[in-house]
């Protein structure tokens, strides 16, 4: 009995410790963020941010677009096969448009970015830890939080919502292609329907989510890197952890945000 309690207690403390570290890191980064901004901040940080924006955003664009197009087709086809039985095929348009802007666009993007960039943050920072590069930054009076984390976080905050928008567009485009080939619905008419079915609120809630996802991915990835202890095997483990934990937390956060938006729209 005592060992069971002990195990539960240890695990709980570990998880609390993790969440606490994430929060501390988030605040420290927000405080250091000013230096990464263009014009007012340090120009080397802004350059690093721009480089990160290429790596997180531009390089991921083909993959995110393709994922969104595939998912758009899947959603349209699965929806159509059921909705056709009720003669409500045109609801596929609503399904794809609302489903993507509110939910799938940001979520798919977050999963792609956490796999691509979350893991690379952890690997990069973890390697720097192992090779004493983090220590040498510190003794050179350059705080790793400001030097490494702030540019990455700012870049993620900017690019992940942008990628989400691209993902929304691709998904809706895929829905349009499906409707064109299955019912010969004219593309312009399709887009008219799409614009009728989504409201601004859908887009904004989607973007709020993607900002939250960007925060989770950047901070979990970097925290895993900073927590590396020991040798190269530890870097590998923390890279895996970064992807697993950030994907998990993204989905949990998605559920929480969706619940909040759902409850606020009813009242």
């Amino acid at each position, binding site marked *: 009995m005592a060992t069971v309690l002990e195990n539960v207690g240890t695990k709980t403390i570990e998880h609390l410790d993790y969440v606490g570290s994430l929060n501390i890191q988030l605040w420290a980064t927000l405080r250091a963020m000013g230096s990464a901004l263009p014009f007012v901040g340090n120009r080397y940080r802004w350059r690093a941010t721009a480089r990160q924006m290429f790596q997180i955003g531009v390089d991921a664009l083909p993959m995110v677009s393709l994922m969104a197009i595939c998912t758009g087709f899947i959603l349209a086809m699965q929806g159509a096969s059921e909705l056709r039985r009720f003669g409500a095929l045109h609801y596929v348009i609503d399904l794809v448009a609302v489903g993507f802007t509110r939910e799938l666009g940001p979520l798919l993007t977050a999963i792609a970015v956490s796999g691509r960039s979350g893991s690379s943050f952890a690997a990069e920072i973890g390697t720097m830890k192992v*090779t*004493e590069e983090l*220590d*040498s930054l510190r*003794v050179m*009076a350059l705080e790793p939080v400001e030097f490494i984390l702030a540019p990455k976080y700012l870049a993620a905050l900017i690019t992940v919502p942008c990628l989400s928008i691209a993902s929304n567009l691709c998904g809706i485009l895929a829905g349009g292609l499906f409707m064109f080939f299955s019912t010969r619905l004219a593309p312009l008419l399709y887009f008219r329907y799409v614009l009728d079915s989504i409201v601004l609120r859908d887009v904004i809630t989607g973007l709020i989510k993607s900002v939250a996802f960007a925060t989770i991915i950047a901070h979990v990835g970097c925290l895993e890197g900073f927590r590396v202890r020991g040798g190269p095997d530890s870097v590998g483990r923390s890279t895996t952890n970064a992807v697993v934990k950030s994907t998990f937390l993204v989905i949990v956060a998605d559920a929480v945000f969706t619940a909040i938006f759902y409850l606020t729209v009813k009242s």
Partner: protein
Amino acid sequence: MPIISIRDLVVEYDGRRILDGLNLDIEHGETMVLLGGSGSGKSTLLRQILALERPKSGSVHVKGTDITRCSAAELKTLRRSIGVAFQSAALFNSLSVEDNVALTLREHTRLAPSIIDLVVWMKLAVVGLADFAKLHPQELSGGMKKRAAVARALALGPEILVLDEPSAGLDPIVAAELDELILLLKEAFQMTVIVVTHELPSAFRIADRIAMLYQGRFCSIGTRDEIKASQDPRVRQFLNRIPGNIAKAAAVAAYFEKYLHTPEAAA
């Protein structure tokens, strides 16, 4: 007044005492060699002097400021007057050699780019790497990496130069060259140099004073000649390369004897 003074420094990792009440004064302009075997606490002491870790108790004063208790801002200012070359060189792999050296100049000074280029060239010329400025760290040999790390440590013209195992892993010729370089730097720039090493020839070549660590305590502190003449058994053991208890033939034999006579082994 000593430039660095350590008082009653105690460091513990997980309840294991690594440094046990150290006292040491390092005078301005002297070369202090911290000598000791593996696991004697040299690297831990160095991390304390660089304020990379906090001690359990005791104080480390650098230029009159207690770095174990001072604010982050004070530490940042203080760190600009300390240059560090780590054991693994810890050059930033993503930057070329010249960018590695230029990093602190760009971050902490407002010098014009042309002046920075000139300073970088001078620092690289001092360590004999002026022709290799454009290369990346992974393209350098071990000795060149260490020299590049020294050049980077010198970038801001520090008052205190800290070298962690400068000659470890280098062939005797390159190691000797590095010793001459250290002597030259001290001569030319009047720096206080702290060298952590376990290489005796190197220690006796460069040291003004030697502090010998043994199991977390100083067993002897003195000038080169004092250490050479020391009758302390631990110093003598180190200087005369007498093996310790770890692999005494009799002990090994006794161990196997015992193992063979235990019932489990027989069964």
